[in-house]
């Protein structure tokens, strides 16, 4: 279409350029423009949370975010969560604890939970439920997702304690 313009976005730490229409949402640009298909399209109406990405560290619904409003923001998608070849503790815990069954909601949950654990490494059960209450899962009944988040928080706390311990030495 003639109405596409070059859009420059910072995604997963890299500056990426792609042609986009003024009425494209971020989800479409990520999936179709940048080939980052890890971000999922569930309801496309802001309810299910499958399309959650981080924008400047905050979890946002990419299906209800205009791509044209994202320039200058740091976007992190599920593809950017790993540290090189190393899984983020959330990724490992979701996999190991059964927090992911069909996996379709998993990227969205992981982005939401990344933001949660950045803010709060000792979330209570209630805080976890509140934090994930914008993400829908139809497989797990949320039980093992909550367990996975608790386990991840524990890993992150231990890691932090370890780092602090080292710093002391």
């Amino acid at each position, binding site marked *: 279409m003639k*109405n596409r313009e070059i859009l420059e976005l910072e995604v997963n730490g890299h500056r990426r350029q792609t042609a986009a*229409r*003024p*009425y*494209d*949402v971020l989800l*479409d640009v990520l999936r179709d423009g940048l080939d980052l298909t890890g971000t999922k399209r569930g309801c*496309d*109406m*802001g*309810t299910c*949370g499958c399309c*959650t990405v981080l924008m400047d560290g*905050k*979890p*946002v*619904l990419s*299906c*209800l*975010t*205009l791509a*044209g*409003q994202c320039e200058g923001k740091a976007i992190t998608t599920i593809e950017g969560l790993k540290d090189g070849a190393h899984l983020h503790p959330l990724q490992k815990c979701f996999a190991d604890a059964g927090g992911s069954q069909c996996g379709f909601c998993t990227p969205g949950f992981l982005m*939401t939970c990344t933001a949660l654990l950045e803010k709060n490494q000792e979330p209570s059960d209630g805080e976890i439920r*509140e*934090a994930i*209450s*914008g*993400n829908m899962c139809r497989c797990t009944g949320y039980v093992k997702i909550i367990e996975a988040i608790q386990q991840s928080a524990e890993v992150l706390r231990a890691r932090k304690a370890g780092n602090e311990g080292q710093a002391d030495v």
Partner: protein
Amino acid sequence: MLLPRFELHRPSSVDEALTIAARHAGDCDFIAGGTDLLQNYKNRLNPRGHVVSLLGIDALQELSPTRIGALTTLARIEESETMRRELPILVEAASKVASPLVRQTATLGGNLLVETRCYYFNQSEFWRRSKGYCLKAEGDVCLVVPQKETCYAAFSGDMAPALMALGASARLKSLDGERIVKLTEFYEGDGIKRYVLRPGELVQGVELPPSATSLRGAYRKLRLRDTFDYPELGLAVTLGMEGEKIRELHVCAAAMETVPLCFDDLTGSLHGQPLSDSLIQLLGERIVKRVKPVKNTALSPNYRRKMVMVYLRRMLEQLATAGN
């Protein structure tokens, strides 16, 4: 899902935004977080050819107990320690809007102007066409109340009743200048034309009287799930006591009708009286008699009205003891 075509404008000041809006008057929407507007656009509900993004504007971000900018996100209100201390009712209301993901980008301005809800309106173009369209979008008959020529879609914002109950006013600006309108006077009309905002006029935010922080306040929301859902009833109550007597009492409600309702005419006469069970009962009965929800949301109108009484009593009991 593809959005309808529009041109996106990204001004960096309020005046620039107003100029663009004036240039495309009648074919223009402002967008901030977009969580409401883009859903409606995806459904082809009254889309415009020009969309003016406000996110590049540095102003309109203030957050204090006397002034909240339209671009302040609901998450910021929810997380603000100052607001939690000074105006907890707003934190309560903000934290009950939609889901935490929506609240990250949804703004105060957006929630004040949030599109009304109705089963027969918030549907895809395919759906609406198959029903011959509703009064609010393309059609000429209301599918809920077919004999009427007004729209009954429910006002579904959570912030408005809470702000109204605190005596807040909206700060509006257009190329013609600024004006301040009490929120209780801001909303009027039916489900289509629901406020006094003029074409090309922008809500810059709200301002609250300094005395608002002296009121105890609570906001409760009726909905099937404790997340996602729009209010089936959103009840805001603020109370100021002088000893055992009511100094000030405001009750405001969302989702009962097409605009948020304020019952100052019923509560005004109660000032100076002790807050008794019978007073609460009488007030509740009067409010229940007044509200007229229709059958266009998940819970029945009758039940929603009944809950006004239950919520009102619980909230007033809570507020009465909160001060002791």
